[in-house]
């Protein structure tokens, strides 16, 4: 089989194999430790029906969205502002690289100390994760703009602002989105880990609570919720990206720039 239908079939096959493997592992080690597809699914529906999973997922989503909203704009805009200031960029560069290199998850305890166990610490962590990933991607995009295109629009009378909006920005959008796509799972993960460490709400809190009570099924159900959240965020990002990048030949749109 070929085409989208064939691919969907192949994917279902892989999913079935993975579930079978899980079932086998749970049979080998016992359901108490490894759970299993069926009890985990039952726990999932139980948590959905009780409203616990949706409420906590929404809380995690909210924290992630705020983190994105705060980290994304400066991550995108700073490279554009620095385009014409290579000196400032050169001075900042080692600091940015160093800050990027710090594992952000290791900062979670610090953020909790600074911003409390509420939403603030999650937002701060997600913002710091997304800012750096998007900053370096957008910077690569701005640097990769075809200078001949800039020269061409200048000859036609375009000023600095038009160069920015009509050439540099559209040329960088694929890079910005590569950054956003890379950042998405880290962002959700950042929220969840911060919730794990200290929180009274969110999917991370649910995982922690269930594990403490040795409710392995519930842990898997909550992990499944995280998975759905990441996939949902990815689909949303892809939809926006597809709209903005209609001009691109499909071969690029499919693979995308490297993160």
């Amino acid at each position, binding site marked *: 089989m070929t085409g989208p239908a064939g691919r969907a079939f192949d994917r279902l096959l892989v999913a079935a194999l993975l579930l079978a493997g899980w079932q086998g592992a749970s049979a080998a080690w016992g359901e108490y430790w490894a759970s299993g597809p069926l009890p985990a699914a039952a726990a999932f529906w139980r948590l959905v029906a009780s409203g616990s999973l949706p409420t906590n997922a929404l809380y995690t989503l909210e924290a992630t969205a705020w983190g994105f909203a705060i980290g994304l704009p400066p991550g995108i805009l700073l490279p554009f502002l620095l385009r014409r200031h290579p000196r400032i960029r050169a001075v900042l560069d080692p600091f940015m690289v160093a800050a990027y290199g710090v594992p952000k998850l290791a900062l979670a305890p610090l953020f909790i100390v600074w911003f409390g166990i509420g939403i603030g610490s999650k937002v701060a962590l997600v913002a710091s994760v997304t800012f750096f990933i998007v900053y370096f991607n957008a910077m690569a995009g701005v640097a990769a703009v075809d200078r*001949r295109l800039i020269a*061409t*629009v200048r*000859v*036609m*009378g375009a000023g600095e602002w038009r160069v920015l909006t009509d050439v540099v920005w*559209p040329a960088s959008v694929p890079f910005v989105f590569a950054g956003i796509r890379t950042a998405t799972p880290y962002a959700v993960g950042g929220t969840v880990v911060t919730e794990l460490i200290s929180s009274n709400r969110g999917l991370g809190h649910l995982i922690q609570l269930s594990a403490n009570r040795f409710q392995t099924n519930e842990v898997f159900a909550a992990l499944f919720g995280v998975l759905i959240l990441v996939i949902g965020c990815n689909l949303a990002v892809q939809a926006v990206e597809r709209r903005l990048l*209609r*001009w*691109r030949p499909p071969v690029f749109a499919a693979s995308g720039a490297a993160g």
Partner: protein
Amino acid sequence: MTAPHHAPMALLEVRDLGKRFDAAGGGDAPWVIRGMGFAVADGEFLTVVGPSGSGKTTLLNMIAQTDHPTEGEVFLRGERILHAGAPRLNPGWNRQIGYVTQEDNLLPWRSALDNVLYALRLVGADDAAGRERARDLMAAVGLAGFEDYYPHQLSGGMRKRASLARTLVYDPPVILMDEPFGALDAETKAILQHDLMTVWASKRKTIVFVTHDITEAIALGDRTLVVSRAPARVTLDQANDLPRPRRAEDVIVHPAFPPLYERVRAAIR
């Protein structure tokens, strides 16, 4: 006054232009262009031929002010618009100099029509009349029906024609063209040459046209310059005294054509 001596008064003049790029491994870079000088009269069609890599594109880049000269000056209507060491360039000199570059350089994220409209949009002239004009020009270069195509959906030759239309649309008095018909088949090339002659004759544009095709250079140009291998300078400045209006098919059977062709061919070494 800086006007040159020959009449009619030169619209565009290049004086003693020289260019060397920064050497890749340090040290002294070779001169790509040196001691280049010529004048183009108002409404004149000047063609330029020369070996590949001789610096023709580099020359046009400097006239269009997308690159700095190392030596020399450029004048437009007697006013010095560029000189070596100028602190900043003014590409296109306030839309007075249009440039059809060797690569099409269309904006990949704009449709063909939006690319052709771009120069009008920059000055808010993309109204109904402007759109009409853009569509007419696209039809004239054989792109009717492809208005909504993105550049990657067009062939190389079609992109080249779109890039020609987007410069003609805003009507700059001087137009530089770098091998605009290089990638086209003989038939399309003949049609576009004819259309360009029509535009030129009706608008009295001043055109500097780089080509590798000697026949094209003689058929289109009032004058043909031959530039040497690097460092490029003018080695032949020939008036093509052939009757107008011309068509490439008629020009090649004209008795005056063979000696003109032979002199250009001999000068390109």
